[in-house]
Every structure is written in structure tokens, then in C-alpha cells.
């Protein structure tokens, strides 16, 4: 299903999501820590030239999305048609022959290591070592300084239509220490392109600025590496789902922090951002201690309590930024505990300047100390170690090749798909797996334990209660398909709801749906069922007789009665467990019961016996047993006794201690009811035409999709936080919040003036 999900398909890159493993799906529902790479994962890794400053004159981008206002091709036939730039002033100054501009772009077109490929005249392809270099060269190309080709000793540039060949004397490549690249060539002085990366935060875009020197500072360029679509929203939703996101990046600290801000991982209203950048063991320790001290200061009165208690109760939002050197020290044996405890109370952790090995070490650390399911996501070869270490590795099939994808368990092309992978697919998979397992244990215990009770009455001789063919077919035919259908199709809340209420993800992290307690409950239920299934026929049939006076307590009648009751009880039970009845579920459940009767009557038929007299001992049993009213009374009674307590228990639990998912389902139901009349008023024939039992919300909800989420990000976040807070309190109060939310969502057309988030503010106040 993950592979098939259209909403995880990226039309630009033409790749669908791919699950490369089938065994980890349920773990997707339990992730607590995400380790993310930055470049190419959070950001698109597609650089674009966005700003420049030449000789002190700044040329800004006019943010006009959608159409390119400047027609480069008119003055430069070699311009890249995909290039968009919105400042006419710069183009004018180039056309007017401004010396500084010319020098600036000449430099850009020369000082790089880009290879060009010209398939035919006017169609240039650039192959850049790094994407930002490519962006600069492309910019220069569009402003008339077209880099055409290079040989080992020369560079050919078309300067405003005039081909010029420069002889290269030396190339001093860019490295992190010099932070500049130099090209020395004849025709000009030595060029030195200094790439002191400073970072500008322009809304949600991350920007590298490149300063360009030519003996004197010629100008500065700004290149932006756009964040991928929907990254801040995804991170916000995931952190609401109580998933901690750590960014492990090779970038510099400032870059990483800026990315953190633009992803909304770090926010201005955070209480404190700890930055740990010490170079020695001692200073790192000092800084860790200090942050610990700050963290626990408001709680110092509780200090007598063990750390595990107050760790969870820390108020305020903290963030931790740590760089590679410090991390190396923090990961040493004596300090890692301290590091983990500090890092885990912080809402966001950013590690910068980390090596691939350190990435893996950090993941290993969390695995070791927190026993939580970890997920690593990355796109480059440097993320491979991290991806392999984490429980779940996700590869982004982006710009940096496919090493990460090959090492990963899941792959897709955009970071934002992660929320769908976790909150929708992960949650469902976990839910399905849990229900599947529970039911499986239940039905097999109900089946097998009957033999244990029968043991007391057959001298512990391993006599089976059932017909041998029933035993063979029970797990294969009679009860397998309904539970399989449930394991495949079940959903408790529809996908848009699980994205809307990220708190729904929490049961998975806490492993609430399948733990020792749940397992024990399943087993107990199975044993209870087996007791009923054995002792009820025992009590009723032992002295029961047919209408003709023949006793019913013979072994074969007993076997048929118990088997029939068993199949009916477990079928009713799966019907109760199934929360999402598709046509396939119906078919499987009814089909299983039907096949049971068909096969049993066939097995007990005279025809088969006449062919194999030694194989079919039960000849005639089903036929004579199933016409007895007493047998049916027994089966009905057994079914009711087995099912009624479960039903009552679930109903009371729903009323007394509802889970968030139950509440969401309930609101869904109410919404559906209220929508129906609204739909009719509005003349929505489409809604009216759908059957009452169908979920009429589908068409709507499907179209809403992410758009609503993104635009009303604030609303969603507040209300679901409020929901989560209130869920733990008295039921009626959070029901009110739900109602209000429901109203605000149900009747938007009727209250056009009211903004959604104003509504949820009242929610919080209540």
C-alpha cells in the first residue's frame, strides 16, 4: 500500500514511494526518534541564484511567483530557459555595460569547476560538482557571460555574444579551510572567489551567500537552497505526534541553526537554546552541566526525586545544538548518559559538523539508552551508516544518488512524505498488526484449550475434540481470511484524521496496543472462550437426548457442536474487531462461515464415506447433529456467553475511558450525520446519492488533503494539543472542545467571516 500511495508520489521526480522491506511496517507506528540529514532531505538541494550585490548596489528578487518576467532569450540566445530572475535593474546594468557588473559575471563564469556539455549549438548542459556552483554559473550565463567549454588549460566564455578564451594558470579548489576558490588566468588578475558562507533567513528559504572578491570586493551573491515543500509542517506535525526530531548534518553550526529556525524546529519563543561547541572534554562537560542546571532549575525543589520523574515534567521548550567536536567528547563513555538525558528533554536537537560515523553513533546511543524505535532519514552516501544503524532507514531518492536508497528500508522523494509514512501508513500498519496478532492468539487459544479441558474427560489420551479435518482446515480455511482481511484493510480513523490529530500516533510509541497486558487479555479471552465452548456443551449434551430418545452425548455429536460453536464465536469476534468493513471483509467473514458448513456437510456425506470408509469416520454426524434444536440452543447460548461480556466491556470502556481514536471516530460519525442535511441544503446531489452507511466524507476530505492542513497549521496544532490535554481530564470537557471543533469544521460555509483559528483559541480557553 505504501508503494501504491498516490499521495506519496512526486510528480517532479517521477518516483513513487517504495517499501523495500516488508517486515518493518508495524514499527513505523512506534517511532519515537527521527534522525534527519539536512541537505537534500530537509532541503531540496536545488540551488538557485536569488540575490546579488554588486559594488554595494543590492539587486533583490521581486517575489513574483509563477511567471518569469524577464525575457533573457531576447538578448541572449544561450540563456537557460528554466532560469527565473526578477530584477530588471540588474539586467539593465549589464546591458548598459556597467564595468562592475561585467567583472562580476565574468568572474562567476570563470571561477568554478563546472564541466559543460554542448550537444548542439545553443543547448548547454552544465555538470557541477556542487549544486551551488552550478547555480552561479547558470546565473552568469543568463546575464550574458556564457561559459561554453573548457580544456585542461583554457576556458572559453562567450561574453555578451563575443567568444573569449582564457588560459588557466592554476585552479585553487574550494576547501573548507581557505573558504575560497581561486582561478588564475591570463587576461586578468588573480581571481579569488571567497565563499564565506553566511546565512540569511528569508522566510522559509535557506540561503547561502557567496561573497565574491576580485582583489577588491566585487559583489556578493546569494544562493538559496529551498526547503522542500511542506517540511516545516511535517516537522510540526511529527513533533506534535511526540516524535523527537534530531537533525544530524555536516554543515556548519550557523547553517544548521538557521535551518532549524526555518523548519520551525527552533522557534523564537523557545526558553533556551543551548549551544555546545567546546573543543575539549572539560569545556563540553561544563556546557552540558550548565544546560542541565538550567533545565532542572525550575524543578530544583524536586531534586530529591529520581531524575526519571522530573525529566518528563520539564516545562518550557529547550533546544540543544551541538557541534561535531563537542559531540565526539559527549559520546565518550562517561559523558554519554549525561548527554542523552539532556538531549532527550530538549524539543529539538541539532548536531552539526558530524561525520557519517558520528551520525551512526548518535543513533546507536539513543537505541541503547532509550530503547525506542528510531528512524533515520537521509539522501546521501554519508547518511548510509545512520540509515543502517537505525531500526528503520528511510532513503530520499533525491539529487545525491541512490546509495541511501539502497541502504534503506523505505524510500521516497520528498521529506514531507515522512508524515504520511509514519502517521498514516505506520499507524495503520501498527494497528493492523496488533489487532491481527491479538486475534490470532485469541482464536488459537479458543481452539486449542478446548482440548485441554477435554483431556480431563478422555483420560489425557490426546484424543482430539474435533474431527481431524476440522483441525486441519480451521486455521487455513475457516478463520484465516477474515483476519487477513482485517490485517490488510482495517483502519480505525481515516487518513486525513490521523494527520489532523497527530496525538493519535502516541499509542504506538507507548506500545499500548500490543504489550504484555494486551497479550494477557487476548489469552484470557481465548481461554474463557474455550471454557465456555467446552463446558457448555458438556453440561447441556451430557444428558441431552434427541427427540427420538437417542443420547446426544456421543463423541461425534459433541465434536460437531463444539466445532460449529467455535467457528461461529470466532467469526462474531472478528466481526466485532473489524472496524472497517469493506466488501472484501464481508465476503471473507460470511464466506468462512459458509465454507465451514459446506465443507463439514461434504466431509460427513455418504458419498465420501463410500469411497474412503477408513478416512471419514464422521459420516452423517453433521447431518444428524445440526437438525437438533438442542444443539442450536447450545451454540446460540455459547456465542452469547462468549460475546456479550466482550461487547459490554468494550462499550463501557468506550464510555468511561475513551481513546482519542474512538473520539475521533465518533466525531466523524456525528459529522457525517450533520453533513447530510447540509449537503442537501446546498444541493449536493453527490452526497445525497451515497448510501447512508457509506462514509460520505470521502470525496470532500480527499480533496482537502494537505492544503487545509498547511493553511490552517496553527489551528490544527492548537486544537489537537488542546484535545490531547483534555483527553486526560474529565470526559465532558474535552467533548465540548470536540464539539466546537466539529462545528467550526462542519459549517465553514455558513460562517465565512470567522477564521478557523479564532475558534480554536476559545477551545484552549475552555
Amino acid at each position: 500500500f505504501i508503494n501504491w500511495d498516490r499521495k506519496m508520489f512526486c510528480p517532479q521526480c517521477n518516483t513513487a514511494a517504495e517499501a523495500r522491506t516488508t517486515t518493518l511496517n508495524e514499527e513505523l507506528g512506534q517511532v519515537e526518534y527521527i534522525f534527519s540529514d539536512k541537505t537534500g532531505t530537509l532541503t531540496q538541494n536545488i540551488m538557485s541564484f536569488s540575490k546579488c550585490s554588486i559594488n554595494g548596489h543590492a539587486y533583490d528578487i521581486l517575489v513574483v511567483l509563477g511567471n518569469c518576467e524577464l525575457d533573457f532569450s531576447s538578448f541572449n540566445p544561450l540563456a537557460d530557459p528554466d532560469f527565473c530572475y526578477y530584477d530588471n535593474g540588474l539586467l539593465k546594468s549589464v546591458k548598459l555595460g556597467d564595468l562592475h557588473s561585467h567583472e562580476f559575471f565574468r568572474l562567476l563564469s570563470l571561477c568554478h569547476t563546472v564541466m559543460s556539455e554542448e550537444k548542439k549549438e545553443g543547448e548547454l548542459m552544465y555538470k557541477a560538482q556542487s549544486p551551488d556552483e552550478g547555480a552561479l554559473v547558470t546565473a552568469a550565463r543568463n546575464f550574458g557571460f556564457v561559459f561554453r567549454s573548457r580544456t585542461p588549460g583554457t576556458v572559453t566564455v562567450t561574453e555578451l555574444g563575443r567568444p573569449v578564451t582564457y588560459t588557466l594558470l592554476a585552479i585553487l579548489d574550494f576547501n573548507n579551510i581557505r573558504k575560497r576558490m581561486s582561478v588564475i588566468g591570463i587576461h586578468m588578475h588573480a581571481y579569488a572567489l571567497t565563499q564565506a558562507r553566511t546565512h540569511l533567513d528569508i522566510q522559509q528559504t535557506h540561503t547561502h551567500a557567496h561573497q565574491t572578491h576580485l582583489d577588491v570586493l566585487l559583489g556578493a551573491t546569494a544562493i538559496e537552497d529551498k526547503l522542500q515543500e511542506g517540511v516545516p509542517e511535517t516537522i510540526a506535525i511529527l513533533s506534535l505526534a511526540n516524535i523527537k526530531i534530531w537533525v544530524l548534518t555536516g554543515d556548519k553550526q550557523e547553517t544548521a541553526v538557521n535551518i532549524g529556525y526555518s523548519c520551525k524546529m527552533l522557534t523564537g519563543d523557545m526558553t533556551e537554546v543551548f549551544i555546545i561547541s567546546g573543543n575539549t572534554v572539560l569545556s563540553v562537560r561544563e556546557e552540558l552541566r550548565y544546560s542541565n542546571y538550567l533545565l532542572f532549575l525550575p524543578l530544583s525543589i524536586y531534586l530529591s526525586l529520581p531524575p526519571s520523574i522530573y525529566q518528563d515534567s520539564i516545562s518550557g521548550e529547550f533546544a540543544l545544538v551541538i557541534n561535531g567536536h563537542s559531540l565526539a567528547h559527549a559520546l565518550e563513555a562517561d559523558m554519554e548518559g549525561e548527554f542523552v538525558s539532556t538531549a532527550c528533554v530538549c524539543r529539538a536537537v541539532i548536531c552539526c559538523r558530524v561525520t557519517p560515523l558520528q551520525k551512526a553513533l548518535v543513533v546507536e546511543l539513543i537505541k541503547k539508552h532509550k530503547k525506542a524505535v528510531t528512524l533515520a532519514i537521509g539522501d546521501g552516501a554519508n547518511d548510509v551508516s545512520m540509515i543502517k544503524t537505525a531500526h528503520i532507514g528511510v532513503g530520499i531518492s533525491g539529487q545525491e544518488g541512490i546509495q541511501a536508497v539502497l541502504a534503506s528500508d523505505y524510500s521516497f522523494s520528498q521529506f514531507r512524505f515522512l508524515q504520511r509514512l509514519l502517521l498514516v501508513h505506520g499507524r495503520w500498519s501498527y494497528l493492523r498488526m496488533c489487532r491481527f496478532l491479538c486475534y490470532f492468539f485469541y482464536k488459537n487459544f479458543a481452539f486449542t484449550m478446548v482440548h485441554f479441558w477435554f483431556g480431563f474427560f478422555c483420560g489425557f489420551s490426546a484424543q482430539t475434540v474435533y474431527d481431524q479435518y476440522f483441525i486441519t482446515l480451521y486455521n487455513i480455511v475457516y478463520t484465516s481470511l477474515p483476519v487477513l482481511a482485517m490485517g490488510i484493510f482495517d483502519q480505525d480513523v481515516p487518513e486525513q484524521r490521523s494527520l489532523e490529530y497527530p496525538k493519535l500516533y502516541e499509542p504506538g510509541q507507548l506500545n499500548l496496543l500490543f504489550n504484555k497486558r494486551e497479550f494477557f487479555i487476548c489469552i484470557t479471552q481465548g481461554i474463557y472462550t474455550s471454557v465456555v465452548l467446552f463446558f457448555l456443551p458438556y453440561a447441556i449434551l451430557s444428558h441431552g437426548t434427541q427427540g427420538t430418545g437417542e443420547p446426544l452425548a456421543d463423541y461425534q455429536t459433541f465434536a460437531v457442536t463444539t466445532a460449529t460453536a467455535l467457528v461461529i464465536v470466532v467469526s462474531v469476534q472478528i466481526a466485532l474487531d473489524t472496524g472497517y468493513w469493506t466488501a472484501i471483509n464481508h465476503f471473507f467473514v460470511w464466506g468462512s462461515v459458509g465454507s465451514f458448513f459446506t465443507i463439514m456437510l461434504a466431509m460427513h456425506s455418504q458419498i465420501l464415506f463410500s469411497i474412503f470408509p477408513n478416512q471419514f469416520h464422521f459420516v452423517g454426524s453433521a447431518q444428524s447433529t445440526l437438525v437438533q434444536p438442542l444443539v442450536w440452543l447450545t451454540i446460540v447460548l455459547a456465542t452469547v456467553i462468549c460475546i456479550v461480556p466482550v461487547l459490554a466491556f468494550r462499550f463501557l470502556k468506550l464510555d468511561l475511558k475513551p481513546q482519542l481514536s474512538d473520539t475521533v471516530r465518533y466525531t466523524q460519525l456525528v459529522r457525517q450525520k450533520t453533513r447530510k442535511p447540509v449537503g442537501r441544503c446546498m444541493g449536493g446531489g453527490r452526497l445525497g446519492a451515497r448510501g447512508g452507511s457509506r462514509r460520505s466524507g470521502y470525496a470532500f476530505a480527499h480533496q482537502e488533503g494537505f492544503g487545509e492542513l498547511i493553511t490552517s497549521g496553527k489551528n490544527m496544532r492548537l486544537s489537537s494539543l488542546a484535545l490531547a490535554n483534555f483527553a486526560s481530564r474529565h470526559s465532558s470537557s474535552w467533548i465540548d472542545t470536540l464539539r466546537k471543533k466539529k462545528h467550526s469544521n462542519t459549517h465553514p460555509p455558513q460562517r465565512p467571516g470567522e477564521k478557523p483559528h479564532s475558534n480554536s483559541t476559545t477551545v484552549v480557553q475552555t
Partner: protein
Amino acid sequence: MKEELETANRPDNTAFTQQRLPAWQPMLSAGIVIPGFVLIGLAFIGIGVALFIASQNITVLEKDYTGVEITSDCYKCSNPSDKNCTCKLDFSLSNLFEGPVFFYYGLSNYFQSQRSYGVSKDDYQLSGDLDYFKTPISACSPYQYDANQNPIVPCGSLANSMFNDTFKLYQIVNGTKKLVPFDGKGIAWWTDYNIKYRNPSVTPLKNAFNGTVKPPFWSKPAYELDTSDPSNNGFVNQDFLVWMRRAALPDFRKLYRRITEGDYASGLPAGNYSLEIGYNYPVLSFGGRKKVVFSNVSWMGGKNQFLGIAYLVVGSLCVVMSTVMLIVYAKFKFPEDD
């Protein structure tokens, strides 16, 4: 070209792949559960009352004749070395025992459901296959061949241990004994009599058993089980069939005869009765008990207090649960839509 490529990789937009199959999502809402419980409860109480009344109208008379107590007339027969012992069991009925009356023998602590005991028979042999008369299947062992390597027919423990006590019921009228006629026809399952067990198609039946020996515990060979009715012999003898349909539980009873004929067609009139027992079957060695049971039936079979009571209890519990749920629901309910 690009678009073509794109559509090729794009997942299919079907309801199945996108998990948007139309579905019915039931919720345990109060509107369904509580009335449902009340309905089930009331229905069960109704059925329970009917069952209970029906069961009350059934008369059962149960008499142990193992002969453990010295006062019992059968005490003298309880020594297994005593062959062909007869004892009698006297009882009196104060009012009419309504007919048709069914006469059962019952055994306790007798594990017919024991596995190796249950499989110790040869279905081929019992369906009249003469090949298996000469070589019974090994499951019959140790009752497969006798000491002289003659095949035992019918082989196996199950057949060998066939119940062989005999009963004759007399009504004491003015000091003289009047035999109550027993009807032994059709006491076995129709499929057993007509399909599962077949005599070999050899006449006379005796010839088919040439070269075989009877089971060691039997006093008569299979073809002489019922001397009064030649068609009730061999593997289709009704008593044999009743025995071969093994009981599931160690405390069981099996139909012996029906009392449907003559003066007793409408039941056993009030009076004194004497049951003459041919005591052959040893049970004391394994701590078993033997008893006879007289019973009549209703539409729901024999006497079964438990079923009626169980229905009544479950029905009442359902009603009680529904009240509890109603209270809980009223207190913590989801708000109704306004």
C-alpha cells in the same frame, strides 16, 4: 514522452490501492448496544422459561445396580468370577410414567473417549470388506488376532468391550409378573445402520465369519447377537451400533430399548415393577458404576434443567448489563447533536 513516463510510474488510482474502498464503520453506539442487550436478554428469558417448563414436565427415573451396597440384590453378582448371575431391581411408580418411555443403561467413570480405545476398530472390516476379516488393521491390537493367530471379527477394544448386561422389565400385577415389551428397533443412528456399518453380502451370514474368532469377551459370535431376529445380527445389530457410537464423556448413558408397545404405549402405569438383570458386565475393577434410566422426552429432548436455567441467567444478566450500561451512558455519554 515525459508525461508517458510519469504515468507509467504513478501508482494506480483505484479505491483498492489508495485504501479508499467504500466501507462500513460500525461503532458500538448506545443506540445499538443497549437495545440489543435488552432484546437478547428478553429473548433468552423467554426461551429459558419455555425450556425450563418443558424440562420440568419430563420424568426421569434413575437406578444404580452396580451392587456396591450389601443391601442391594445385585451385590451377589458384583464378583466378576460369578458368571451368568441374575439379580433384580424392584421399584414402584406412584403415578403414570408418561410414554413413550425410553430405557437407558448408564456407565460412569468409563472413558470411551480414550483415544487409543476409540481408534481400536477396523472401519473396512465393519463396512463388510471381507479382506479385512482375514487381516484386521493393526489399530485393533491387542484384539487383532487371538493366541492362535486367528483374526478377531469384529476386532479391536471398542467392539470387544461391548456392553452385555441384559434387562427384562416386569410389572407386578396382583402378585404375578407381567412382561413389559421392549422395542429394540431403530435405537441406533440411521447413518450407522444404513451406511457406516455393513455386513458382508454372504448368506448365510455365518459363512462370512469362517476362519475368524469372536472377540474374547463376547459370549456369542457377531452373527448370533440376536437369535430372535436374523436381520439384527452381525455389524448391524442395534445394540452393537449403539455401543460403537462412543460417548464423549466418561459419564454416559446409551439407549437400550423403547417402551412403545402393547399396554405400555402410553407409558408405565402406576404400580410395582421388577427389573431382571443379567449381570455380566464388570465395572467395579475400574471403579465404574452401572445404572438404568427410564425417561421420556419433550420437544427439546430429555430432561435438561441446566439449559433452561442457563438461558434464564444469561438473559437476566443481559438485561442487568443493559441497565448498567444505560446508567453509565447517561452519566458519561457523548453529547447528542443539537
